[in-house]
């Protein structure tokens, strides 16, 4: 599903975010991307949905080389990818329903289809009773669940999560991890960037470790299923 060949991202001579990264992620995998702050986790994820372009190397996503993808093709790539951020990135002036529906409307879906899928997505994250609320009326955990619903409502092939539980407590974090697990169980490839090592213990999965932009570790758990506590 995702392949990187000698990918580097250099901002200036002294500023290298990703350094000669090569790796492969199969369809349906659940992968943690870990490392200290500034290790290159966010840049790595941003390159996967072409918010950044690599300075060197090749990236393939779902068989498509996205390294030199043309600007007008990027939206169609992003429709296959759901992204969840630490700061939620919700539209504060729109309701919960409108925030999730936005992702489908942007793809030109019909009104009937949109309302059906939005309700399903919100039901999955347990917020179908908050349709008309505004984000500022919700807790941090609820807002992140809305963001996840928005990412999942388009049935993405890949779900990218950049420190999704960074602002949240453990209880909420675990709830969110359940959502990611369920999405992964349905076949979505999940990449979760985090420096919270306790998550690896709670939900053991493959762990890719970055340090100063380089790949310094790639560990798969001995048994990935049934090892959660």
């Amino acid at each position, binding site marked *: 599903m995702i392949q990187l060949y000698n990918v580097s991202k250099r901002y200036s001579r002294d500023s290298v975010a990703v350094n000669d990264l090569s790796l492969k992620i199969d369809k349906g995998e659940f992968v943690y991307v870990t490392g200290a702050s500034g290790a290159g986790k966010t840049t790595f994820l941003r390159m996967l949905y072409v918010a950044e372009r690599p300075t060197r190397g090749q990236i393939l996503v779902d068989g498509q080389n996205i390294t030199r993808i043309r600007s007008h093709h990027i939206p169609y790539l992003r*429709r296959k990818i759901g992204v969840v951020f630490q700061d939620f*990135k919700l539209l504060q002036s729109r309701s919960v329903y409108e925030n999730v529906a936005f992702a489908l409307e*942007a793809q030109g879906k019909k009104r009937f289809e949109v309302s059906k899928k939005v309700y399903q997505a919100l039901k999955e994250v347990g917020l179908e009773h908050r349709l008309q609320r505004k984000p500022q009326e919700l807790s941090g955990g609820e807002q992140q669940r809305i963001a996840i619903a928005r990412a999942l409502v388009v049935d993405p092939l890949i779900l990218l999560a950049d420190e999704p539980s960074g602002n949240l407590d453990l209880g909420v974090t675990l709830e969110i991890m359940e959502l990611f697990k369920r999405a992964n169980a349905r076949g979505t490839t999940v990449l979760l960037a985090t420096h919270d090592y306790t998550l690896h213990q709670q939900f053991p999965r493959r762990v890719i470790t970055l340090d100063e932009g380089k790949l310094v570790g790639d560990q798969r758990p001995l048994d990935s299923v049934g090892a959660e506590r």
Partner: protein
Amino acid sequence: MLETVRYFFLRALRNMRQWPFLCSAAILTMAVSLATIATFFLIVVNIEQLAARWTQEVQVIVYLQQPPSSQKLPELITKMEQLDGVERVAFVSPAVAMERFSERLGEDAALLQGVRSDLLPASFELALHRNFRSQQGIEEIIRQLENLIPVDDLRYGQTWLERFNHFISMLRFVGAFLGGFLLFATLFIVANTIRLTLYARRDELEIMALVGATMRFIKIPFMLEGAIQGFVGGLLSLLFLSFSFSMIISRGLNAFWLTPMDFDLLFLTAPQQLLLVLAGVVLGVLGSLSSLRRFVRI
């Protein structure tokens, strides 16, 4: 397709409702600018119409040393009418001249009490053919006249009229220059107003790009917004223009001593009014486009 259009339209309207102050600022800016440009246009058009009217009335007035006898008068008039370039000849006797003068004085006509009725000279008023309503044409007629009758003095307003036409050309140039400058300034202001709106909504634009919205999907509602603002601005400018036309332009031009009583001032024709509103729409769309280029990047 229809649903997509409806969606874009509703989004544009919602965006405008969400930022009423910025929206109003853009509309008012366009309305004032368009009204100002149209005002210039109306002033120039009306003055041109006036000049055209005067050109039609160009005549040569020949003042005589002595009025001709009643027997020689018809023959003289006939001979003058046969001159190249002369359309019509009218004789004004000293008494008629005095009557006209008295009318022009109006309330001050009492000043003429005791003045001889034959004080003013007799004159011939020659109306000219269209092709002779120029400096050269008049000089040709004068040459022919001087061979025909003893002339005391000649009056013709052609030199003045040509200077006036030159003034109008300059006014047209200045109007076009200022109008162009004003249009550019309006475009700049509208673009910046819309840029402010887009800046306030940059989060929304970022998320739209993130969830896979195409450039077209992102831009069209903003362009529609610009078009709607421009349309309303255009309509408002017509309102401003009507007001300025009745309160300022027509009063100003009518107070101007050169305007004849039976001259009807021109307002914009229906096609010109439509053009004004369309100009507003184009201005709004261009303003949006120039701002979007900076803020919308996939």
